[in-house]
């Protein structure tokens, strides 16, 4: 009994320690965003003077450098659209390759692996010119396409998950006369919540993270069109960093908020998915 108690205490201490390490940079981000000094503070962890000025500047007094509300709106729209498209694509490909058998299945899967091997940014310039031909540069739809069009290639994790869905369930549905589409929609999808959550999260995040593609496609230099990533990255320019570093941090914090909310909401589904899994098991 005593040993068990020690075990539990140690376990929580370890977790607390790990969480501490994982959170240090995040806390630094948070406290720096409240700093009154606008450059990089290299001497102390906590700012010497606290202030809300960074948030105020970022949210209410947009200048040509910091147009955060616009960026946020742009990125949010792009993220939502590409999230819907990519999640759908990933699940569609995963279902087709996991639950169905057809002639081109293996060749297609091998092709997908091969294509994942190429360093993507080398072909960036070709993607750019394709978009320009379609008149989609400096256009948020162009960005959505870039983030979601090829997302089917990332189907492997979802396929791995669907592989664990018992065949017997689908067979029962076949016997009831359900079509493939119906099975996909009302048998397999409801059981795949964890992987849907995972797919949604990862495809929602991409537009918030990417600045290389985004900068290339939104190349007209109109800063109100930018996404958060380009805008924030731009604040670290040599001539701007000393005035905007703390606003950069504040921007980072603000970006994390919707993503955190997404995670918190998704965690609820997560647990439901888990119970669903145990029922079916």
């Amino acid at each position: 009994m005593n040993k068990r108690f020690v075990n539990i205490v140690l376990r929580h201490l370890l977790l607390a320690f790990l969480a501490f390490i994982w959170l240090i940079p995040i806390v630094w981000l948070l406290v720096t965003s409240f700093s009154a000094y606008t450059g990089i503070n290299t001497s102390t962890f906590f700012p010497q003077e606290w202030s809300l000025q960074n948030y105020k500047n970022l949210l209410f007094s947009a200048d040509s450098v910091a147009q955060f509300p616009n960026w946020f709106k742009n990125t949010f729209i792009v993220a939502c659209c590409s999230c819907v498209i990519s999640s759908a694509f990933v699940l569609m490909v995963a279902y087709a390759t996991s639950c169905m058998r057809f002639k081109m299945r293996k060749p297609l899967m091998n092709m997908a692996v091969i294509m994942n091997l190429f360093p993507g940014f080398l072909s960036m310039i070709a993607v750019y010119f394709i978009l320009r031909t379609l008149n989609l540069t400096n256009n948020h739809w162009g960005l959505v396409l870039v983030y979601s069009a090829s997302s089917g290639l990332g189907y492997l994790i979802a396929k791995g998950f669907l592989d664990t869905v018992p065949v017997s369930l689908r067979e029962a549905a076949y016997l009831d006369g359900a079509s493939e589409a119906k099975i996909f929609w009302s048998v397999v999808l409801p059981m795949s919540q964890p992987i849907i959550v995972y797919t949604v999260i990862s495809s929602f995040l991409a537009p918030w993270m990417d600045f290389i593609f985004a900068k290339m496609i939104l190349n007209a230099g109109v800063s109100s069109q930018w996404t958060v990533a380009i805008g924030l990255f731009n604040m670290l320019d040599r001539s701007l960093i000393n005035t905007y570093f703390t606003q950069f941090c504040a921007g980072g914090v603000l970006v994390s908020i919707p993503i955190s909310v997404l995670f918190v909401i998704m965690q609820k589904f997560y647990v439901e998915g888990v119970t669903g899994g145990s029922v079916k098991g």
Partner: protein
Amino acid sequence: MDKVKGQTGSFFGAIGGFFKEFGTAVANGDIFVKLSLIWMGAGYCRRKQFIKSILITLFEIAVIAFTFGFAMDYVPKFATLGTVQQESVFNVVTMKNEFNDYDHSFMILLFSLISFVVWAIFAVVYLNNIINNYKLQKMEQEGKHIKTFKEDLISFLNEKFHITLLALPVSGVVAFTLVPLLVLILVAFTNYDQQHMPPSALFTWVGFRNFRDLFGNGGLTVTFGYAFVRVLAWTLVWAVFATFTTYIGGILLSILINDKKTKFPKMWRTLFIITIAVPQFVSLLLVKNFFGNSGIVNTFCANIGLTDWLRSMGLIGTSYIPFLSAPGWAHAMIILINVWVGVPYQMLIATGVLMNIPTEQLESARIDGATPRQIFWKITMPYMLFITGPALVTDFVKNINNFNVIYLLTANVFVTTNQAMANSQAKEVDLLVTWLYTLTQDYYNYKMASTIGIVVFIICAVFTLISFNRFIKGDREEAYR
């Protein structure tokens, strides 16, 4: 390897069979099947499938329009990639430059390729169309029921559901991954570099010269071979460490959190997930400043005397700890920081997978008196590996091409002191991709970047195809059903 061979063999066999079928169809088909060679809707029209007939005719017209309205502007120039150099004269009255009708080599390359892809798709549809028509003819002769349009549509929700599912994702991949990749491959056979940049200059085909230059006469630069080997070695070391540290870390953390003995699992999970919520480029740039030569960690280490102690031990020769600015230190730090970045993700996946472990297996093992360790190694791990094995391979490949972490952590901070590396524009912490990025971004050497890209790809492809086929080959796919 044999399996791969066998597969390619059967693939080509299938193609051969396809053409044979087409031949039979043309030879034995009635007049309407033969007419379908010109008017693709003819056969369907005869069998009273009018909607299908209209659709396929529209498709045919669209492709013809594409060919003469677009493709023929570019494809004839594909052999030379253009011959008309851009020239302009300024007209002071209109205040405009007057350009000649110049060729843009890259556009010619790209659009020709797109045309080829479109034609390839058309060819497949065309051949299939004849075969289908012949089938319909036979069905009619045998008096079988020919499907109505509605029945055809329904089949796309049933036995042909995979076509419905895959159509959009595959066309997305073709347009935004396959075509750009083919462009990239073709560029390796041209002289597209700073001296030949469209639109002002033309580039053209040079055959295998770039590949010869890469490995012949001492390589791209005198130290090219030296740098290539080192960059490749670090790329592989990095990929192995980055993949396995985060993978194992994620599983362990997820087990730790999801154990029944852990209180508030949701809270712990949330704490770790917060780090994902901060966009990678923000957190990485932040961490870069955190560990900078004059960053806060260095200030802290100097204050507690760690820096002086390391100096006296002879471990560092500078007045700061070069966390991200000296080889060795930087290598270790990059891997550690990547653990910080990657473990929460992996934990999320592992949690999802672990929740779906067949509980009866765990129960029976427990009843049989297995220790937690045995359960972990005998049941949990094999299950995890089975489910995430393919993902592990993709992760590995992703890490080989992991641009963000290396670039964000070391750009502008890490200056190599190895002159041989510097003479090839490489750094000790460069992955092949970051090196390629420098070559294209700073030197506009697209031809060489593409050439190296292909070489890298071949290395990766051999490795991956073998392990991938191991992981998902054969009956294992059905093992846990």
